């Protein structure tokens, strides 16, 4: 086994342990700035990742761990996301009564889990990485220990998360029982004869259900709005970006590496329906929301639905579109939650009313939130537009049996305009008088916001480089 393959994970997980210890010796007043050190560590790891060569797939841990282009693409994705989340946490940290250092360590552990998930190549690694992510999130969601909504969010996530893990383990057991292997590569070869064995199919379906919980696809989405609303803002951002992306990389690998093509092809209908219903459900439920975090919760459901379009297309183009859309989603959602986190901390509310007249208090925050909403709505020249364009193209490519799904997606986008732009309206014109209270923005938050805005514009205007990366990454999947 080649342990150096895991160099990126070692750096992050080791760093998590170090920060846990550092927390003991750091005076209480300085604990908050430990987050900057953690962000620096993640940034160094990100730079280091460009020294990692993944042009040919390399295996470790008895083939349970694979380092290929897809894994590396997602590892970098998670690293970038975590830098944003850590900067957000530093700003938000004064809301925590205790355990600031632990919060940073837990984020690093969750990041480690996500990076392992990007490389999962057998069911053991899949399950362990998912549990590493989920268990840390149980704590992260309920970190505002003195606030009931946060505890409620933690409990809800715990119960539903445990249930979905149980379902997933059951699925793994059934698949192992019928095929006799835990490895993705072997399964793909053996399973050709299992396509009509019900135990195997049910097991695989349970597995997909467990992953659908992670990406909050209908009907496994119920936890999303409540948990998003109650959790501390950085946790919500991490859930929306990291946890969802981890679900997608596992789903892509499971469907297009481990499963025999014959089975997946039969499931295309299931995936299409799941995608269509998720889009409509998320968008329709988002309309009446008044809480920004809840609204983004439903928006996150609908965006999961859009990305499932690319999975349901079952093509190289479709998966590439998913990766591209996720990249744009990363900057967009981070920008949104950066603004929400500042608003919640300084104004004490994430109601739509709280952002009334935001452009007078801070033009930067208002512009960033507006751009994030416009990008989510899929309007050029922002990242969301090119991502949606790729997804819709990949759906139409599959021929006339997919046309109804295209129609559903179009209806979904039109519905979504109403609530995304409703947020924009709440900022720029609302009938409520505004007390001119300036919002204070530290330099790191300012830089993070600028980076997110630039990222959205870059992916919307110059898609070529990222598209090539995504296309190379999905080259390891089989269709």
């Amino acid at each position, binding site marked *: 086994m080649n342990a150096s393959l895991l160099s990126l994970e070692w750096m992050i997980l080791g760093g998590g342990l170090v920060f846990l210890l550092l927390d003991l010796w750091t005076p209480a007043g300085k604990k908050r700035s430990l987050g900057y050190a953690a962000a620096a560590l993640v940034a160094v790891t990100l730079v280091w990742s460009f020294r990692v060569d993944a042009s040919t797939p390399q295996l470790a841990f008895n083939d349970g761990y694979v380092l290929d282009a897809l894994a590396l693409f997602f590892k970098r994705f998670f690293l970038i996301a975590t830098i944003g989340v850590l900067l957000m946490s530093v700003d938000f940290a004064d809301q925590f009564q205790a355990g600031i250092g632990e919060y940073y360590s837990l984020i690093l552990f969750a990041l480690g889990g996500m990076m392992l998930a990007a490389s999962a190549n057998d069911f053991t690694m899949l399950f362990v990485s998912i549990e590493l992510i989920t268990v840390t999130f149980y704590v992260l969601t309920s970190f505002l220990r003195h606030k009931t909504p946060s505890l409620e969010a933690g409990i809800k996530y715990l119960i539903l998360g445990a249930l979905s893990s149980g379902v997933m383990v059951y699925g793994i057991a059934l698949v192992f029982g019928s095929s006799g292997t835990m490895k993705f590569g072997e399964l793909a070869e053996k399973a050709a004869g299992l396509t009509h064995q019900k135990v195997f199919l049910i097991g695989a379906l349970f597995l997909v259900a467990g992953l659908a919980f992670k990406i909050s696809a209908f009907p496994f989405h119920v936890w999303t709005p409540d948990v998003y609303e109650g959790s501390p803002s950085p946790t919500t951002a991490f859930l929306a970006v990291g946890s969802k992306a981890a679900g997608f990389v596992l789903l892509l690998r499971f469907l297009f590496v481990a499963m025999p093509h014959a089975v997946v092809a039969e499931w295309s209908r299931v995936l299409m329906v799941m995608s269509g219903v998720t889009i409509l459900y998320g968008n329709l439920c988002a309309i009446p929301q008044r809480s920004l975090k809840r609204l983004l919760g439903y928006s996150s459901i609908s965006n999961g639905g859009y990305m499932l379009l690319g999975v349901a297309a079952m093509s190289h183009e479709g998966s590439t579109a998913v990766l591209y859309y996720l990249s744009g989603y990363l900057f967009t959602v981070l920008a949104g939650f950066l603004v929400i986190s500042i608003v919640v901390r300084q104004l004490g509310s994430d109601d739509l009313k709280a952002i009334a007249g935001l452009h007078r208090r801070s033009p930067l925050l208002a512009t960033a939130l507006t751009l994030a909403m416009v990008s989510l709505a899929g309007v050029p020249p922002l990242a969301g537009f090119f991502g949606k364009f790729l997804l819709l193209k990949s759906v*139409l490519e599959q021929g006339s049996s997919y046309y109804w799904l295209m129609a559903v997606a179009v209806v979904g986008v039109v519905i979504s305009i109403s609530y995304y732009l409703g947020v924009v309206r709440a900022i*720029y014109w609302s009938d409520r008088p505004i007390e001119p209270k300036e919002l204070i923005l530290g330099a790191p938050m300012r830089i993070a916001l600028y980076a997110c805005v630039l990222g959205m514009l870059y992916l919307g205007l110059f898609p070529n480089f990222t598209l090539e990366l995504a296309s190379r990454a999905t080259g390891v999947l089989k269709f």
Partner: protein
Amino acid sequence: MLLALILIPLLAAIAVALSPRTSPALPRLLALAATGATFVISVMLFLRFDIAGGMQFEQTMAWVPSLGLRFHVGVDGLNIGLVLMGCIVAFAATAVSWDIQRDEKGFYSLLLAMIGGILGAFVSQDLFWLYFFHELALIPTFLMIGVWGRGEDKNYATFNITMYLTLGALIALSGLILLYLQMPLADRTFDIQAMTKHFQLHPIAAGDQNLIFGLLMFGFGILVSLWPFHTWAPLGYGAAPTANAMLHAGVLKKFGLYGLIRIALPMLPAGSQRWLPVLALLCMGNLVYCGWVAMRQRNLNGLIGNSSVAHMGFCFLGIASLTLVGVTGAVLVMIAHGLLAALSFGLSGYLYSQTGTLDIPRLGGLLRRLPFIGAALMIALFAGCGVPGFANFAGELMVLFGAWKSGVTGHWMVVAAAWAGLIIGAVYMLRAIRNMLHCPEAEGAGEWIDAIGSRRWPYALLIAALVLFGVAPGLLTDAIKPSAEAIVKMASSGKANAVAPAAPLLKAASTH
């Protein structure tokens, strides 16, 4: 040159957005400079345009090679006039925005972004960028109506217009992507010329043509306010700030028509045979029904908005006729109506700034109090009736000739509807002239001030263009004709294809 036409307003938009708050006059100056520069460039382009030269001033850049996407701009006879009209309207719209006193920075930056998008849409020779630039104007429209709009309905109007236009744009996008997917995998491209050439040599199967043409017709149709999908237009224009209404009704709305002529007709000849009769029937709704609605309006903006929807009927009719004179007329009407709509909304904006109302009964005796604005309004209303001497007359006449010559089923009925539409138009326009310009002075008329000095020239510019192209329509039609002829020829090849779906072009042409 064309790239500069797009980049100047867009870069100016960024410059305005970043300009310091301490100099409140700077945004307007920057915006005037930028739109003035585009105006000068467009006049230069128009003068240097070679009528027999086909596609000119082309510029290309690689963008996403793996998808066959590249940046490609160019003008031929079809869009040179539209670009000129767009630049004139943009310049005038910026100039009449002196009444914006709140958040000028935001206003001018959004206005410039919108202008950049509009001009980009009309010069793009690549389907993706065509769509991309058109959508660029969507959010500025939303914000401008919301923040600087007027009336109690503005909240409803701004969401209505944005959602309606998004729906239309996405339907059109589905059609455009399907068109792209019809290209063979090896040379897939969004380049309009390459696609047109390919689809002439290898026509798409008739069934697919019908589907794609239907998507494009209704998608673009919604953007042009095709009856019965027109309700967003009068509502949105009524609530929009002056500059926005001028640009949207004048220029942006023509995008859908341009798309139909540039993309749908030449690439989908069989589809156009199937759908154009439907379009001819629907355009009667624009001509008669929307004209009727306009007649019932008591609000000036409602009247202008509905009459502008009604005028779109002429453009649709010209396209549906699929004759050289009809399509040329449609393009001429597009340009003439762009100038006219901008002039009308510009004047109504001035009236609103003076009177605080657009209720026609409360606007009596304008001609006495506001001689310049009153006279300009009279000119606009007469041009709207189709009085000779204005570009609208020439265009509408050509459309009627074209429609009469075409063999579209029930063409006599459609032509009759167009005549009826003209009469209805004359009724409401003349009635508006009587009620607003000549009636006894309304209450409070003493406080109204006429436009003076520099506030006059935007209107004068628009009127001058209307009269120039009305007296000498040949300036435009000579350029339009060669392009229109090529398109009509390509679209007519579908007549033979409808019988034998896969007949190659040469055979189809020889049967005529």
